[in-house]
């Protein structure tokens, strides 16, 4: 009797484990990483992963199905871009229009440091040599 009860409890505890919304955790992990790079079109300032809007749920369902069909991440992104345009991508693709966006930061950083270096050297040459190292904190 005790054994039976234990078995019953064991079964019960098995049954009571919450399931993930996804049937397949691998699919879900890919959906997650993909949808974090995509913009929800209804609320527009959330990622597809975070949004609870109905369209976002439909699109997540669509992506799950596409993953199940064996499409690659790139193919799925292209599938959505074909329907909604580059607007859905939170990480804009690198092309001629976005060259400045992607290269700008590096260019600005290089220019910034070059200008600083040149300015410091030049003013150091111009000014009379007057310093002894100060003990200021």
């Amino acid at each position, binding site marked *: 009797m005790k054994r039976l009860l234990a078995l019953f409890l064991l079964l019960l505890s098995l049954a009571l484990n919450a399931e993930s919304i996804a049937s397949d955790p691998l699919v879900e992990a890919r959906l997650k990483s993909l949808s974090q790079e995509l913009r929800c*079109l*209804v609320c*527009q300032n959330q990622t597809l992963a975070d949004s609870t809007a*109905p*369209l976002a749920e*439909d*699109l997540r369902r*669509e992506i799950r199905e596409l993953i199940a069909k064996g499409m690659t991440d790139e193919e799925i992104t292209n599938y959505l*871009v*074909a*329907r*909604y*345009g580059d*607007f859905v991508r939170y990480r804009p693709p690198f092309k001629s229009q976005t060259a400045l966006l992607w290269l700008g930061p590096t260019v600005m950083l290089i220019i910034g440091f070059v200008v600083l270096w040149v300015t410091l050297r030049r003013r150091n040459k111009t000014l009379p040599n007057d310093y002894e190292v100060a003990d200021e904190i």
Partner: protein
Amino acid sequence: MKTQLKYLIPFVIFLMLIGFFLKGLNLDPREVPSPLINKPAPMFEQPLLNDASKTFSSNSMLGQVWLLNVWASWCTACRDEHPLLMAMSQQIDVPIVGIDYKDTNPEALDVLSKLGNPYSAVATDVEGRVGIDYGVYGVPETYLIDKEGVIRYKQIGPITVAALQEKIIPMIKGLK
């Protein structure tokens, strides 16, 4: 002189920014242009709203210019658009096909029986799959499709009188 001009750089950059903002004030950041313009309209075959045992196929429209209007009974903006659609169905000689998007049939039929039916046919899209193929993100949306089945124009949100007179009607005339 060269050193003088250097100090004007911030001002010049600022002027360029102001120019962009001035332009930006007249743009709608929420409007997403469809990449489907001048592309073949995605094919679909969906059950009819008034008779779920029959289906509507977009292929049946090949050879004529038509409007595809995505709407729903739960969409308040569609209600605003409805009178204009009614007027269009009377005055413009192209069929308006409705897609009842993510809706239940009784509620949609109820709206049409109360406000009138401007559509030559209404197909249902309960799961929103046709909507995804057409890149629908906010109902109502309206597509103008030509004789070859190519999307020529997309109206996001309710059709306005201005859009109708300046864009849709001239385009329809051109396509016919």
